[in-house]
């Protein structure tokens, strides 16, 4: 079940004033508040590809990622009129919504397939997941998905989503130092796990 309460736009932590003036989504939010669905189209043009990338990497399934994104933008449509600007970037809130929706789906899958390896959770009909385990992209995918949840999310937000450390920390409700520590542990673990793909001692790829 989705924890809607934590997804409230107003639940985001306070941020400096400059965030407000830099929020490029304010025009779209104002259009949504006026009941104009064009505002939602603007938000999707700006964020859909990135948010879908996050959901798709987390869930390993484009169809599930489509559903998560649809749900996230419907929430944006319903909640943007109550948005209090200046507290957080709207894109931060959207990432938080998508991340929580994905976590809920992953927990649901784990409950269904408890006791089985993570590999068993992926969709066997999916081309991405049918990729050979020897494929380096597949090895990266598996290694990232097997990281502890917080390390995985930190890496996805900073490396793959390209968010700043401040924004990623805000999404995960952590200090920047704690985020940095999670990232360092994640990358260290990946370096070890993916070491067969490196030229030993050179730090270059095979």
């Amino acid at each position, binding site marked *: 079940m989705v924890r809607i309460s934590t997804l409230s736009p107003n639940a985001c932590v306070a941020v400096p004033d400059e965030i407000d003036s830099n929020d490029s989504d304010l025009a779209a939010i104002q259009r949504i508040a006026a009941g104009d*669905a064009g505002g939602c189209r603007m938000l999707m043009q700006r964020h859909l590809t990135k948010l*879908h990338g996050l959901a798709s990497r987390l869930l390993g399934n*484009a169809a599930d990622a489509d559903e998560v994104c649809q749900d996230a933008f419907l929430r944006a449509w319903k909640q943007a009129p109550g948005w209090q600007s200046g507290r957080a970037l709207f894109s931060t809130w959207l990432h938080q919504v998508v991340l929580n929706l994905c976590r809920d789906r992953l927990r649901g899958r784990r409950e269904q397939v408890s006791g089985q390896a993570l590999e068993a959770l992926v969709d066997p009909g999916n081309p991405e997941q049918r990729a050979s385990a020897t494929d380096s992209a597949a090895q990266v995918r598996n290694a990232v998905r097997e990281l502890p949840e917080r390390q995985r999310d930190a890496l996805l937000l900073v490396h793959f989503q390209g968010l700043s450390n401040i924004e990623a920390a805000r999404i995960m409700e952590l200090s920047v130092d704690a985020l940095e520590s999670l990232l360092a542990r994640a990358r260290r673990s990946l370096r070890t796990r993916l070491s067969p793909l490196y030229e030993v001692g050179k730090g*270059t790829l095979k």
Partner: protein
Amino acid sequence: MTTLSCARLSEILDAYGADPARWPAPERAAAQALLASSAEARQLAQAAQALDQLLNRWQPQPAESTLTTRVLAEIARQPQPSAWRNLVARIWDDLGGWQLAGPAFAASLAMGALVPAWIETDANDLPDEDLIAAVQFVDEPPDFGP
């Protein structure tokens, strides 16, 4: 511009990788200056870059091309909540939202335990002795003896 030690650059590379765009903004310029001037720093960055390149091989699956249209169609079917509901939601959030549920539950449990105890104390209070005597007098049959 502040200077940066090789040790701190190593921490930054460990956490954020070799792409300066991902580095903490306040330290970015100093880190780039160190890279430009130090062979040791460049070696550290090269190792981090290899992991970045490896991670970048994992590309996400694209969204369904009709997703935007689908979402807009769904939006057209779903009315926005009224301004009144938004106001209530905002006040609820400002008060702490569901974070209040725990304390409220604890308070209701405490009230549930204390209130019956108070009521029980009142019920056990003995009636006033004069009242008992009066009742006994009223209930006593009249004395018609000789």
